[in-house]
Structures are given as C-alpha cells and as structure tokens.
C-alpha cells in the first residue's frame, strides 16, 4: 500500500483518482464540446428555425418531396449493397488468412492494409480513369463479350466504395476467424457432418460476431460517402451527402441541408444504437492485426 501511495498509483481505486481523471479528460471533452457538438447543434438550430420561428417545415418538406426520399432510400440501398459485397469478398479472404503460413498471412494482411492507408482521393481518381468508357476494365470486359457501362452508374460507385471499405471488413473478420478453434470442425466431421454442414452449423455461427462487427462499421461508413459517388457516379446515382452539399452550394438552403443532416445522423445513430453490441472500433486497430 505504501508503495502505491507514494507512487500515486492508487489509480482506479484511490479517492484522489477521480479529480486526476477529470483533469485529464477535461481538455478533450471541452474541445469536442466546442468543435464537435456545437457545430452539430448549429445544424440542428438552422434546420428547426425558419424565418426566426421554430418550425418543422424543413423536415416536412424533406419527407413530402419524392426526389429527396428517393435519394435517402438509394443511400440506404447502396450502403446495404456495399456491406453485402464486402462480406462476400472479405469472408473467403479472411478465411484464407487463417489457414496459410505466417509469411503468406503477412503478405495478405499487407495487401489489405496498404490501401487502408493510401489516399482515398488518389484511389478514386484511379478508378475514374480505369472505369471510363475507353479504359482498360471496359475493354477487358468487352473482350469477354460483356458490354456494360461502369462509370457514372451505381455499379461504378459500388466498385469504388467496396474497394475503400474492404479493409474495414477484413480486419475485424480476420480477428474473429483466427480465434475460432478449428478442432471444432474436425469434431463435427468425426460426428458425421459433411464439410458443408460442418461449416454452416459450426464455423459460420462462430464467425458471425466478426461479420456483424465489420458489417456495422462498413454500413455506417457507407451512409456518409461523398467523394466516391460524386466522382464515379452521376446525378442519377447521387446519395444523401451529395444532396446536402447541393442544397447548400446551389440553393444556399441552410435549413433544408440542416434537416437532411439531422435525418442522416439520426439514421446513423439509431442503427448504431441497435447494433452497438457488435460495434468494435478497436478491433480495427488491435495490435493483433496491425502487427
């Protein structure tokens, strides 16, 4: 006890710990109150005050304008699409990471991590060039007899989004898959299960926390995408973030842009509240992964 007293390391349990903790956390809390919460509150204020009076007109306008509702639904649809695609691509990839040698695993991890870091904007530009009508991907598909437009279509936007979001799915998924005891699969086989049902009844249920954890973060990030749909999409594929910018830059409609922002953030928060038990931001940064 005396050692701990002299050290001031009574830490979590000492009576003096509370003031120290408060002192340490105060700067960040004050900072975020002024530069995070205040801007958000300012948006809420602008959305609710019309001509100096409290009003819900901006919200009513939004939900009674079919074009706006369409964009909101499209945003949700694209987010769901991006999430599903990320799961479908990341699952086999993360699974492979669990069964290969350490060296191969390091390479597979590097392949996922490098794009995680490289500029999103630079990658989006690259897709703009690669997906264009005279670009290599279109020509490659034409050789296979497939002729589909990619740039300025939802498919093009999805390709760009999935490429950016994939690491957010692979990392938590790998963490979960790596923790599954593979002897359970062998046990299921011994007990008479074929490989498919051993996977479906044993492995997959155990991997669900990873799928959900990655899915939550990918879905939430998808809802707020701006640059990728703006560069790779067209006005016909625009998402809610673009609509918000457009309301402000073209109409200077602060109230309307504010209401859309509030709707978007409520949508995000409601989803996060429902899915919070699966949200594990730290999994993305765990030393297990970054190492």
């Amino acid at each position, binding site marked *: 006890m005396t*050692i701990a007293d002299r*050290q*001031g*390391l009574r*830490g*979590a349990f000492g009576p003096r710990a*509370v003031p120290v*903790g*408060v002192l*340490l*956390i105060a*700067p*960040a*809390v004050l900072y*975020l109150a002024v*530069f*995070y919460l*205040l*801007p*958000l509150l300012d*948006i809420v204020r602008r959305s609710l005050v019309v001509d100096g009076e409290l009003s819900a007109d901006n919200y009513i306008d939004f939900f009674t304008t079919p074009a706006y509702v369409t964009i909101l639904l499209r945003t949700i649809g694209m987010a769901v699409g991006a999430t599903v695609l990320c799961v479908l691509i990341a699952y086999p990839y993360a699974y*492979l990471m669990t069964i*290969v040698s350490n060296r191969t695993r390091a390479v*597979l991890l590097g*392949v*996922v*991590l*490098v*794009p995680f*870091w*490289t*500029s999103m*904007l*630079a*990658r989006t*530009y*690259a897709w*703009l*060039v*690669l997906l*264009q009508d005279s*670009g*290599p991907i279109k020509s490659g598909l034409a050789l296979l007899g497939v002729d589909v437009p990619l740039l300025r279509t939802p498919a093009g936007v999805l390709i760009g989004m999935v490429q950016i979001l994939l690491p957010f799915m692979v990392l938590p998924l790998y963490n979960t898959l790596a923790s599954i005891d593979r002897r359970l699969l062998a046990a299921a086989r011994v007990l008479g299960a074929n490989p498919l049902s051993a996977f479906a009844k044993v492995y997959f249920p155990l991997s669900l926390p990873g799928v959900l954890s990655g899915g939550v973060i990918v879905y939430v990030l998808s*809802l*707020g995408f*701006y*640059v990728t749909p703006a*560069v790779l999409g067209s006005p016909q594929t625009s998402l809610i*973030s673009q609509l*918000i*910018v457009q309301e*402000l830059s073209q109409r200077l409609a*602060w109230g309307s*842009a*504010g209401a859309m922002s509030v709707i*978007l*953030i409520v949508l*995000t928060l409601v989803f996060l509240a429902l899915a919070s038990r699966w949200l594990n931001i730290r999994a993305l*940064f765990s030393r297990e992964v*970054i190492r």
Partner: protein
Amino acid sequence: MTRSRRPVLLGIFAAIVGVILFLPGLAVIPMGFNGARTMRFPPDTWGVDWYLNFFTNPAWTGSLVTSFAVSLLAAVLATVLGTLTAFALIRHRFPGKPIVTGLVLAPLVTPIVILGLGDYSLFLQWQLTGSLPGFVLAYTVIALPYAVITVSASLAGVERQYELAASVLGASKFSVFTKITLPLISRGMAAGFLFAFVTGFDETVIAIFLSDPGFRTLPVTMYSSMTREVDPTIAAASAVIMLTTTLILLAYVSLTKGPHASGNARRR
C-alpha cells in the same frame, strides 16, 4: 483431395482481391507520365510534364504546403489531447466514462459531410473559414479518435511494475512519468501522430466546405481537377500522395512492430 483443392480456389480468389485492392494504387504512377492532355490509360505518349507541373505550379505547390501545415498542426494537437485522454481512459475513473468514450470515438462514425456543414456553419460566424486555425481546429476533431486509440493500446501494454520499481528506487512522480512511462508509450504516440497526420492529409469533404480561393488544401485542388477542369496533373499528385502515405505506413508498421508495441513481436 478436397483439402488440397479448396485453398487453390481461395488462393486465386485472394489474388483477384489483391489485384483489385492494389491496381488503382499502382496505376496512378504511369498515369502521371502521360505525354498528352488526356485521361487515356495506358497513355499513348509519355512525358514528365504533369510531375513537373505538380512540383512547380504555384496552385499545386501552394495547396501541398497548406495541406502539410494543416495536417501537421492538427496531428500535434490531436496527439497531445489524445495522450491526455488515453491516460484518463486507461488509468483513471471518472464520472460518465462510457459516454465520454463514446464522445471521443463519435467523429469516426459521423458522416463527414455533416461535420463539414457544421464546421462551415459555425466558422462562418467566427470568421474561421479559409484559414489555417479553422482547418486545424476541424481536423483535430477527426484525428483525435485515432490518436486516442493508438496511445490507449500502447498505454494498456505498459507493465505497471516498471513504474513501481522506479518509484521504489526513489524517483519522483514526475520523473517516473518522463523517464519510464513516456518512453514506453512514445512509439504509440508516434504511431497515433502518423495516423492523425494521414487523416488530415487525405481529408476532402470538410476541406471543400472550409476552403476559399485563397486558402485550399491539396485534396480540394485534386477534387476540383477531377470534377471541373480535367487537369492531368492530378495523376502526378495522386502518385506523389500515394507514395507519401505508403512511406508513412511503413514508418507506422515499424513503430508498431517494436518491442513495446506488442508482447511477442518478432523482427523479421
């Protein structure tokens, strides 16, 4: 039989995924060497004009310098705030801890357009748009979660015995902190700083709101050359940014691979 066949299919699949993840990154380097003013890929003719333009045209160099300054200052501020916060979260109790943790991480999941709109709305009233302080204050918010997460992870791995030992041997609280704790978490702080820097360096949406013609960051210059005037210099800019961020990633990996970053890390 099935055992050997499955990994082959998976391997092919993983290779395709790898190409999709890497392809755009690698493609921007030759794109910058296009000899003509087109977006054709692969280019018909080759030249170094766009790389030269990137490093000599004041519109590009100016925004590159601005981006560096803004990201650097925001990363410093975020690392300092983040370290204090990590100490509070890992080592202390205080009222409302779960809510505060949520608040600190919230900018990560807040749609960036909303942050941009809110900052713009507020900074117009405070006359901070198109200014260095405005950018730094806004970027610190989005960089802070990364700093907190990295420093927390590092701090959680510090063995308390080292600090106790120093203290038993007569070190004051202050020198225990500066001579034991701080060196042990310095790699985590450096990693957090790099993460925070890259976050600001690549940020586009808040920058679109806060920039004005006299003060704009590199992503805004790049974005407008993608959407308005098609200036092939953007390919060179993309390649330079890509290489810069990759070098920072390598620095980050070497930091997190160190002996104090992880219990059983091996040097390869």
